[in-house]
């Protein structure tokens, strides 16, 4: 059993707390100042097993952080995000060509990437995530997608943007549950994706 503290600083972290509360091996508390009728609210992460969403609080408590971006001064699970999901999908594919995400409001670029419907063909720009390139495209409405195109197989996760963002963050705790303490999610892709699917995401695959 892991007891984690979630820094409830936005919708993604609040949704991550809800997703984590469905996991049988995780207990959740929120890091104050905040209010909640659903979770205990604590002032410090000291004595807990991990902090979700805040590197600073993890440093203060000396425990692993689980964050959507890169960690700068501490250890923990990095890139627990939609881009991280795409890179995790690509982790064991042979001859990976394109790794891409589509999120609402992301803007465009000069590379064309074709996502499954309803996102379809989009203009994307290349962004670097700890040295890995992911093409980032705009998506319509509230839909998001993580796409990995390998030489033989293509993989995708497509879902409601906010739900996907919350699960992508929460699933980083699955990496800790599997016994790892640090690294980007794509280095521990099986544990990360297994937890993400247990929390409700579905991986689609087709021949290239």
């Amino acid at each position, binding site marked *: 059993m892991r007891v984690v503290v979630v820094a409830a600083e936005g919708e993604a972290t609040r949704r991550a707390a809800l997703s984590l509360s469905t996991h049988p091996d995780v207990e959740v508390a929120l890091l104050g100042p905040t209010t909640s009728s659903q979770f205990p609210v604590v002032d410090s992460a000291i004595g807990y097993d991990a902090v979700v969403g805040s590197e600073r609080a993890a440093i203060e408590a000396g425990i692993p952080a689980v964050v959507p971006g890169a960690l700068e001064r501490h250890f923990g699970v990095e890139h627990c995000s939609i881009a991280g999901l795409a890179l995790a999908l690509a982790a064991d594919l042979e001859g990976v060509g394109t790794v891409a995400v589509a999120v609402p409001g992301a803007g465009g670029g000069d590379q064309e990437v074709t996502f499954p*419907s309803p996102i379809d063909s989009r203009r994307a720009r290349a962004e670097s995530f700890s040295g890995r390139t992911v093409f980032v495209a705009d998506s319509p409405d509230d839909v998001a997608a993580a796409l990995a195109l390998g030489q033989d197989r293509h993989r995708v996760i497509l879902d409601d943007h906010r739900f996907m963002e919350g699960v992508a963050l929460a699933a980083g705790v699955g990496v800790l549950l599997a016994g790892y303490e640090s690294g980007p999610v794509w280095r521990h892709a*099986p544990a990360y*994706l297994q937890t*993400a699917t247990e929390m409700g995401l579905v*991986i689609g695959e087709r021949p290239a």
Partner: protein
Amino acid sequence: MNRLKNILFVATVVGAVVAFLRNRLTEPAAVDRGGWKPVEPPR
């Protein structure tokens, strides 16, 4: 007049039954999902 009403009533009922049976017996339209199939996470 009553006979005409009865004929119309019977025709309506028969039409509804035929429409119902046709819907039940017709093959469902194939949904094009672009070849994507749900899979277990890689191990």
